[in-house]
């Protein structure tokens, strides 16, 4: 059922499971566990539609490597109402690569506590939830029915994104939750504190308040924090009644290692023979979208971060410099061939979506300023390292070498040596701030997404990613949420 938090007429709501946040992660946990015989309380700060006063609760200071001082990033990169940021996501879906789960010696602090195989069946469930076909391991190799610009080699491989409609979680799953007898969705319910017992080992209750001043508590057997990569850290940090540095923050890890996916829309350009690359396969308009990626061997050899290169054919006509050089290449590359393959007769832009290396100094902290609920706002310092941009630059260079070596084209480098960060932005993907590790010295949550040292508190969402690959996070967020739901089902049954 749906309940306006302002209409709650009791001081304490009791349930088996309290889920804080109704975005992709929270809705998935609730949807997966409904009809399981447990009372579920789902707390959502917003209403069914966008409201500026609620959205403003997201406001906070943000700056960093590619953000100007006082950037509006925190209030503009996410949505605070039922369905969360699935109300505006673009639908790009792809599992993380197995390499993303592994510890890579050339990427400090990399690796998950398990391999991709652990998530495989949950990725299948997640695919159904976001309305795409399941990925199978051989899929990237089987899509050769289309002509890729770069044939799979030791250097580069073509991978696929599946495009979700995109699924608007509130529209697709909201009604079922509203109709469920075992799920209560509270709208306008802002969690202002998570209260632990005296020892700090269990959560006793969460304090809830509305913008108009109504206050009540929720007491549950288990709690799931699912408010996104910024708010998850913020809520743990403000809950400092027992642990003075915040819940789960004994090791000063909460809020640290904030990661984004650096997006470079003008990372370069490629000239190629007309008809060589199947434009439809690279188009964003189909059910799949092909991307060119450095192979695992290439990443290992050149100490690269993971990344993908999208070909953007829908570009304005090339500038004269591109045309003239393309003509030069045409002369050189078609020389001596019996059949003409005009190397410079087509061109595309290159849009890179890359991995950011985990960086302890990239972090969410609490600002001194407070929001309308009286809660300290978030402050984000999104810091990347020179290695992050050098990896992108080097990947483009290696693509140029691969194209030239195979005679399939030439590439132009878009990363400028003197201003390498120019044109780099984020994808509004907030990750890493409650990272997962089986060791409490290296992570905030364990491999079950339980906060280390706090028995009944779990975190859902991309804040638990220790490393994030290049793939958009939603599919992995949903897969982890399905996995967490499975775990919670067992826990709640066992009491």
């Amino acid at each position, binding site marked *: 059922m749906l309940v306006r938090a302002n209409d709650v007429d009791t001081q304490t709501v009791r349930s088996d499971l309290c889920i804080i946040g109704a975005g992709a992660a929270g809705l998935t946990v609730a949807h997966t566990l409904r009809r399981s015989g447990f009372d579920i309380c789902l707390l959502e700060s917003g209403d069914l539609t966008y409201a500026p006063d609620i959205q403003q609760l997201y406001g906070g200071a943000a700056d960093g490597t590619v953000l100007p001082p006082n950037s509006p990033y925190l209030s503009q990169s996410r949505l605070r109402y039922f369905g969360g940021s699935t109300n505006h996501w673009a639908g790009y879906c792809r599992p993380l690569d197995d390499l993303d789960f592994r510890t890579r010696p050339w990427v400090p602090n990399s690796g998950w506590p398990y391999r991709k195989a652990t998530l495989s069946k949950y990725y299948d469930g997640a695919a159904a939830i976001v309305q795409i076909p399941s990925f199978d391991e051989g899929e990237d190799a089987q899509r050769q029915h289309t002509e890729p610009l770069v044939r799979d080699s030791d250097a580069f491989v073509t991978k696929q994104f599946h495009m979700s409609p995109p699924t608007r979680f509130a529209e697709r799953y909201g009604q079922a939750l509203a109709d469920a007898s075992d799920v209560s969705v509270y709208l306008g319910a802002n969690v202002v504190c998570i209260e632990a017992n005296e020892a700090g080992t269990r959560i006793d209750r969460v304090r809830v308040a509305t913008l108009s001043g109504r206050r009540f508590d929720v007491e549950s057997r288990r709690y799931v924090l699912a408010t996104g990569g910024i708010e998850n850290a913020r809520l743990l940090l403000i809950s400092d009644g027992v642990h003075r540095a915040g819940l789960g923050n004994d090791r000063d890890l909460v809020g640290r290692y904030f990661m984004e996916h650096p997006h470079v829309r003008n990372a*370069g350009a490629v*000239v190629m023979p*007309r008809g060589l690359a199947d434009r439809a396969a690279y188009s964003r308009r189909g059910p799949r979208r092909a991307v060119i990626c450095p192979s695992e061997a290439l990443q290992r050899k050149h100490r690269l971060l993971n990344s993908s290169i999208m070909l953007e054919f829908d570009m304005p*006509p*090339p500038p*004269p*410099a*591109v*045309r*003239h*050089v*393309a*003509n*030069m*290449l*045409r*002369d*050189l*590359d078609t*020389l*001596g*061939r019996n059949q003409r393959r*005009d190397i*410079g*007769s*087509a*061109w595309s832009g290159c849009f890179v979506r890359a991995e950011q290396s985990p960086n302890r100094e990239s972090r969410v902290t609490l600002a001194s300023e407070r929001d309308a609920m009286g809660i300290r706002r978030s402050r984000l310092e999104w810091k990347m390292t020179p290695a992050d941009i050098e990896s992108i630059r080097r990947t*483009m*260079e290696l693509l*140029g*070498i*691969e194209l*030239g*070596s195979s*005679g399939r084209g*030439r*590439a*132009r*480098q*878009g990363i400028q040596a003197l201003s390498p960060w120019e044109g780099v932005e984020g994808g509004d993907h907030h990750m890493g701030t409650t990272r997962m590790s089986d060791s409490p010295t290296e992570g905030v949550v364990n491999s079950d997404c339980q906060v280390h040292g706090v028995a009944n508190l779990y975190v859902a969402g991309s804040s638990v990613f220790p490393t994030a690959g290049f793939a958009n996070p939603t599919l992995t967020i949903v897969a982890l949420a399905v996995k967490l739901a499975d775990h919670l089902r067992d826990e709640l049954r066992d009491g």
Partner: protein
Amino acid sequence: MDKPLLDRRALLKMGLAASGVLGVGATWWHHASMENRLVLRLAGWVARSEDVTTIGQAYLERQPEEAHRDTLTRLLARDLSLFPYGVSDDELRQRSRAKIASDFADANTLTVQGWILSRTELRLCALAALLP
């Protein structure tokens, strides 16, 4: 991009023909070795646009020791194995393509004006920039 510079090839042919005719009387042409002539033939195929010239000049700024026509000719002739005499146009083209491909395979490339190009391509651009 669909449409190459339409008059470029015609101009190129005219230019090659003219340079051939004029070159007969030119002292350097008379005394040029066969390898020079082969290399110059090859360089003549490079579109002599302002941008190609710019790339060639940018390369020479980074490799000033190569900033002479004879030097570039010698290097290209060596790399393309332009002997024996009488290499046909097709053979010349094949060799240039093969050398460019091996440059890429060996990562013998540089990024000049943003373009990731093989050493041989860049030398041809540079030679084109040095031609009168």
